[in-house]
């Protein structure tokens, strides 16, 4: 039966507004890829139109090419994946010459994740990305070993992390928002987030992987070459939701890209309610390369089912009337 004009109009009215604003940055919808799980978009473009998601967050780009860790780099855990890729990548030259133009040619929004071993390296990366046209935002991966301090992650010292963020913010073109990506493996995430915001971060990306380990009981050796690795996937989702919730409670005006085990529209909704303005799909892409589009569709469905007209109206909704919950937790 053909739809009459009235039904069509009603249906159109029911389609929720998925646009989200993260400070100065406006995305067509809140679903993005998680850094390190989508390369620079090329592999996933064989499965869906990468221009249709909010943005492609690239694999972390480094100044020089990096070979990464030897194999084995990955171990499956219950509802999770433990990995130690070690930032393998071609370096910033190849990225700006080959990967970035390709992403833009596909009409995708490019949020470029950067990782360095020193403040200077982050500055170089921010500079190169500011000179290149078309960068939507820079995500600063702070879970990268700080070579000046024996390879400890920058996030291990809030001052070191803040220094990187300040340097990137100072260097990057003013119209390119800078997001600080933080790991939950820190003494005080809220304090670290505060330092990053004070240092000039326009937003935060929460969370990076959680440190973990798998030992193969047959070989009696760690299952991945790096020994310990980063745990991702639904196994860490409650940890990630708590992080987003706590940071949003402390800094409600700071936009957050939330991630950690998002595999369905309901998972995405959970992060929005906790206070994320956008959600990144990561490990789920290993299982289902079209997961971003599915999550987006499912999220839209969840909103329609709830009669929600604007996705933005749900951001942080779990906090309403819940004053003090963050303190009481645990």
């Amino acid at each position, binding site marked *: 039966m053909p739809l009459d004009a009235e039904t069509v109009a009603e249906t159109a009215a029911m389609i929720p507004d998925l646009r989200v604003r993260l400070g100065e940055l406006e995305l067509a919808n809140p679903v993005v890829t998680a850094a390190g799980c989508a390369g620079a978009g090329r592999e996933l473009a064989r499965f869906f139109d990468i221009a249709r998601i909010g943005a492609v967050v690239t694999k972390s780009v480094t100044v020089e090419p990096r070979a990464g860790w030897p194999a084995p780099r990955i171990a499956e855990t219950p509802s999770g994946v433990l990995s130690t890729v070690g930032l393998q990548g071609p370096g910033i030259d190849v990225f700006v010459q080959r990967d970035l133009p390709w992403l833009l040619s596909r009409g995708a929004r490019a949020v470029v994740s950067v990782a360095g071993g020193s403040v200077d390296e982050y500055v170089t990366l921010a500079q190169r990305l500011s000179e290149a046209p078309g960068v939507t935002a820079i995500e600063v991966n702070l879970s990268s070993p700080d070579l000046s301090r024996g390879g400890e992650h920058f996030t291990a010292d809030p001052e070191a992390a803040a220094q990187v963020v300040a340097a990137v913010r100072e260097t990057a073109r003013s119209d390119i928002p800078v997001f600080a990506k933080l790991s939950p493996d820190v003494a005080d995430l809220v304090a670290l987030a505060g330092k990053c915001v004070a240092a000039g971060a326009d937003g935060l990306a929460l969370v990076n992987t959680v440190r973990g380990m798998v030992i193969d009981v047959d070989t009696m050796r760690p299952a991945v070459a790096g020994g310990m690795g980063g745990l991702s996937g639904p196994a860490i989702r409650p940890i990630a939701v708590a992080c987003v919730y706590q940071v949003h409670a402390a800094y409600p005006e700071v936009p957050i890209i939330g991630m950690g085990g998002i595999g369905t529209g309901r998972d995405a909704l959970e992060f929005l309610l906790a206070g994320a303005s956008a959600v990144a799909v990561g490990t789920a892409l*290993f299982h289902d390369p079209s997961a971003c589009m599915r999550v987006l569709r499912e999220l839209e469905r969840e909103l329609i089912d709830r009669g929600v007209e604007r996705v933005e109206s749900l951001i942080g909704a779990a906090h309403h009337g819940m004053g003090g919950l963050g303190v009481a937790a645990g």
Partner: protein
Amino acid sequence: MSDVRPVQMSSPVLTVRQVDAYHAITVVAPGIAERFRSGQFVAVAVGGEHSAMLTRRMFAIHEVKPDYGGTVEFLFTVRGKGTAWLAERRSRDLLDIIGPLGRPFPLPRDPVNCVLVGGGSGSVPLFPLAHALRRRGCRVDFVLGGATASRVFNAMTARRIAETATFTTDDGSLGTKGRVTDVLAQVIEEAYSDVVYACGPMPMLREVTAIAMHYGIPIQVSVEETMACGTGICMSCVVPVVGEDGITRMARACVDGPVFRGERVRFDDVGTVPFDALGAPGWKARSVEDQAREAG
């Protein structure tokens, strides 16, 4: 990356059968069957819709048939929870499957003599390859090995489709007692082989490559490296491979391979990052040295 776009589909299981010591599942997957070229594989999601197993399981495609619009058969042994779940699938169950994935075996333009060397389940992709070579008028000789007779995959079929089929087993229960590399040189000499194709464990591929290089004939190997996504994004299945430019890179077996030119794979360095690989500590030092040498 292969220029042929893979497809992701929910494919009904058509048949589940046993081939020697292996489980074989045939699914109805027209999109995969029509795109398939020998050497390519499928990535199968295991554990059902809300599975706690997030990585896919990769299997070489054994056979495609035109029935029901196109079917695809793959083989496996039960090695963990994922393959145990797969072994319990029955006709009409649905499998979430992606394929065809990976760089296929390049085929010779001329009707040349090809020897196909396989170890254990590594023999699987050699069967569609044998058919493709035969269709091009190539002579095909098989050398297949395994731990024991039941692990030598599809010996009967190999005999039927190849000019000669030579078998080796560790226990001597079929063919020559020993390994495929013990008999390969003789087969190459007797068959006047022009090309070698091989699939199996890394140590075997290393030796097969050495033999092919000794005879100065091209060698294409399909590597068996553990994969997690099959689509190139997780970066876990890396193998050190020398590129056209002479630079070693940590290549992804799933999209840059699984088929490589044998002499390009740094077998001695598998499981490591060679010091001079692109982005490894020594790669710059080497390129500076090279430049100095070139400058005289």
